[in-house]
């Protein structure tokens, strides 16, 4: 039976939302683990939730990236286990160098909290396998530093490896400038590592996983968690 850890940092504030979705909606055994208590790689998958770890001091995610928990997460990633970073969790993974690039301050210098469309640009990853290519997911964003940046020449490598997983798009699925809320390079909202088992995204799928909590009566966010858990089940069966 899959077992997942939601890693809690000082300043995490979306940890309980992720926990609830996994336990009550996806129905998978999930522990909330304080980052200093994550000392063994005993779980099948890890989620780094959103929030403001260490007050976002120095840079969002920069201090949490030195938490001993990242050593465990790094081992898990190396072993091929799925690791998902949401919002601040994405920033932590970038600062820990588990994902490439940087997540900078929003282009409009404001905290943005709104619902956006995500377009699935790679549905072969452990986090998107239950989606269709080009499918739109309606999920909210809530961040001040969400502007994904990578040196332009490296974007091509990312693209070639299928590492650009999710992009901000309009209702027709076009990645227009208007659909880009924070000035991210090439509308990038979510990326993964070259092995595809570590993904980070700025939007909050855990806030779009129960239709009764969505103004659009949708729950497409849960596809990310469903995909992740399906991947874990498959991995566990393969080991038997």
């Amino acid at each position, binding site marked *: 039976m899959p077992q997942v850890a939601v890693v809690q940092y000082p300043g995490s504030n979306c940890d309980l939302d992720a926990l609830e979705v996994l336990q009550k909606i996806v129905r998978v055994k999930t522990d909330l683990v304080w980052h200093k208590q994550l000392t063994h790689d005993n779980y099948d998958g890890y989620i780094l939730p959103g929030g403001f770890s260490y007050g976002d001091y120095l840079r969002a995610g*920069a201090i949490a*990236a030195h938490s001993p928990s990242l050593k465990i997460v790094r081992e898990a990633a190396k072993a091929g286990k799925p690791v998902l970073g949401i919002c601040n969790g994405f920033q932590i993974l970038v*600062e820990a*160098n588990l994902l490439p*690039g*940087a997540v900078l301050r929003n*282009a*409009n*210098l404001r905290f943005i909290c709104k619902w956006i469309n995500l377009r699935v640009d790679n549905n072969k990853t452990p986090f998107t396998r239950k989606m269709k290519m080009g499918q739109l997911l309606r999920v909210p964003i809530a961040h001040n530093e969400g502007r994904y940046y990578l*040196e332009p020449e490296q974007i091509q490598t990312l693209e070639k490896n299928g590492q650009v997983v999710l992009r901000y798009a309009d209702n027709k699925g076009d990645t227009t400038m208007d659909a880009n809320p924070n000035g991210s390079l090439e509308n990038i909202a979510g990326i993964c590592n070259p092995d595809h088992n570590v993904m980070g995204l700025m939007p909050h799928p855990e806030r779009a996983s129960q239709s009764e909590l969505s103004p659009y009566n949708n729950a497409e966010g849960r596809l990310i968690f469903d995909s992740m858990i399906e991947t874990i089940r498959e991995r566990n069966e393969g080991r038997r």
Partner: protein
Amino acid sequence: MVLKTRNQYRTVEVIIQNKPLARDPEGETIHRNLVLKGGYDLVTGVRAGKLLRMTVQAESGQEAENIVRRLCDDLRIYNPVAHSCEVRIVGKEDRITE
């Protein structure tokens, strides 16, 4: 017997800013809405950044600078993908400690 040691405390500044290719909306806004509107047309650009001032116990300015430079790289004080990081000595201070 109390041993008195003479320590030199050096002040080292670390300046972190976005690389030229990574846009800096804060600097752009200060430039456009404050500097240019205030009539300072000769100022053609503003980059905003972050300043860390560190006090380091070291024998020489060079040693202090080397320590800080190393820690900036080791601890990823800046994100090398998006930021440049400048380290410079700004002063020294003598203190007697017992």
